């Protein structure tokens, strides 16, 4: 009888501990991802970036842009080349809009549409909160890197699943692998070139996006990011956005 009781106790202990462990791992994963979000896309910031796009016919384009964020809204302003100066993208919640210099009204665009014909799509650049869009689960540890599976919270999120490799200690991302709903591995984003930026934080300054379907690459380089700078709230409204 004592044996039976201890067996039950043991089983219970095992069950509870594994539950706690999974909850803990979810907790851990969410914590890690939250830290990544805070580092890579603070609630409010201004960043200056360049995007290099390689095309099928061998031509190459470099765009200069600034990225601004205020909570659930983000803004991209194009600075170069001259032809694109004046182009803007605005994200308000789930909607993304584009404003062109020769068009009076802003145009609603899809999050999944490629930005400037490159391998970063609108969501990649404007939807910045992983915690908001995905639930996180820790798969394993590779040395000091956590391998976390992110599952989309709803259909509106661009990628159904992301496997993120993030440094446990700092929250600095190493690599994201993107998967569609059907499980197809479509893109991979590699982070490198740590750089201390104006607000004192050290972040990867080079983001290499490879499209595994078309075998093309685009590179986003963060020239600078500052969490202490931001645009006034009014700039994130549609009225101000269009002419």
């Amino acid at each position: 009888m004592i044996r039976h009781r201890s067996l039950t106790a043991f089983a219970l202990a095992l069950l509870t501990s594994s539950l706690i462990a999974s909850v803990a791992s979810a907790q851990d994963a969410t914590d890690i991802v939250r830290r990544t979000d805070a580092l890579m896309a603070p609630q409010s910031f201004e960043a200056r970036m360049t995007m290099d796009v390689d095309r099928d016919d061998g031509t190459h384009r470099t765009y200069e842009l600034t990225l601004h964020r205020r909570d659930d809204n983000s803004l991209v302003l194009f600075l170069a080349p001259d032809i694109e100066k004046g182009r803007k993208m605005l994200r308000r919640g789930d909607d993304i809009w584009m404003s062109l210099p020769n068009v009076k009204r802003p145009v609603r665009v899809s999050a999944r549409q490629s930005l400037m014909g490159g391998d970063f799509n609108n969501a990649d650049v404007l939807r910045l909160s992983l915690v908001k869009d995905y639930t996180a689960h820790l798969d394993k540890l590779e040395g000091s890197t956590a391998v976390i599976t992110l599952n989309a919270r709803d259909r509106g999120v661009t990628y159904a699943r992301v496997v993120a490799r993030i440094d446990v200690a700092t929250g600095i991302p190493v690599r994201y692998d993107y998967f569609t709903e059907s499980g197809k591995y479509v893109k991979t984003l590699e982070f490198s070139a740590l750089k201390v930026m104006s607000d004192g934080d050290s972040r990867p300054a080079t983001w290499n996006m490879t499209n595994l379907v078309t075998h093309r690459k685009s590179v986003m380089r963060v020239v600078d990011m500052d969490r202490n700078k931001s645009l006034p709230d009014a700039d994130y409204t549609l009225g101000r956005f269009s002419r």
Partner: protein
Amino acid sequence: MRYLIRVALRNVFRNRKRTAITLAAVFVGIVVIIFVNGLLAGLHLSFNDQLTKGVLGDLQLQRQGYRDSAESAPLTLDVPLDDSLRAMLDGNDEIEAWSPRIRFGGLVSNGEDSAMFLGMAVDPEKERVVTPKALENVVEGTWLRDDVPNGVVMSEQLAHSLHLKVGDEITILSNTREGSMNGRDFQLLGLLSSSLPNAPGRLIVMDRSIVGPMLFMDNSATEIAISLRDPAHAQDVGDALRAKVSPRAIPLSVYGWKDLSPFFVDIMQMQDMVFGIVVAVLFLMVLTGIANTMLMSVFERTREIGTLMALGMRRRSVVMLFLLEALMLGVTGALLGLVVGGTVVGLLGLHGIPFAAPGTSGAALTVYPVISTTTVLIVVVFAVVCSLVSAFYPAYRASRLEPVAALRGA
């Protein structure tokens, strides 16, 4: 022979009514053939004219391989308008004018709703020379104007579906040659319709000086439409051009209007086939008409034939007699038919027949029936062959008669 001719002539006039009826059959048949042929020939000429002078040009240059993916309008398979190409086209004496065009797809919006459209960006000056008839398709407003560079003309169906009026402002969005999205506001200057069936209902024509840069195609085109000084030379000029543009670094293909409108080629072939059936039916009709008359004639004149043979006329001559009579009927009917039919076609050819084909949205095509020497030749041969064939059996029957039995009346 002269004797036979005289006898044949007399026999033909012997039964006036029957001769008249037979002549009528031949006459009607011939008039119908001439009229339908004239109409079809005129219609085909109209198609040719409308297509070459209103839409396509006499010849077109495109990048090799572009046509295979024409449905997706790929901007990357474009024709770069480099100096050597310009020099070659400008220096060609046979070419009257050449107009580079960019065909692309996109979304047009009236501010609230959007619709898909098929765009064509042109140089208005050059386009005016290469496709002068295109301007006739403007049913409201005006064509592109120099003082309004961001002006467009749009298919009236598309304009109606977006509740647009002439003068309204529209926004156009399209993917550029580089894959990025770009757009611009434009002004609606005019509405287009078409007199040809199968015309695109979502067409927007715009100025290439504005759209080219918008699509990152400042100095290239998806097609070059060419008009020739003498369109009749299209085949030869096309071949010569082909020899020059196929070996280029970016090889180009040369197309005639028939290559570019398989739809019309099919329609014309179908019409020709129907015409062929009509001719066959008429052939039978005329055939039976004459044959019937001749056969009756043989039965009625049995005694007469018997007499002739008894008097020494050879069977051969009897056959010849009947053949001559049939020939006279046939040729006279044909000549009458030619005269009347030709006059009708000639008069209509001056005035023109409005021909609104099914599926066209507006202006009716005017068809000018024509007659050609080929037609006349065909008609004459038709008449002769018909007559002879139809007379053959009766003449044969006549020649088989036995003089004695024939004299008795059997």
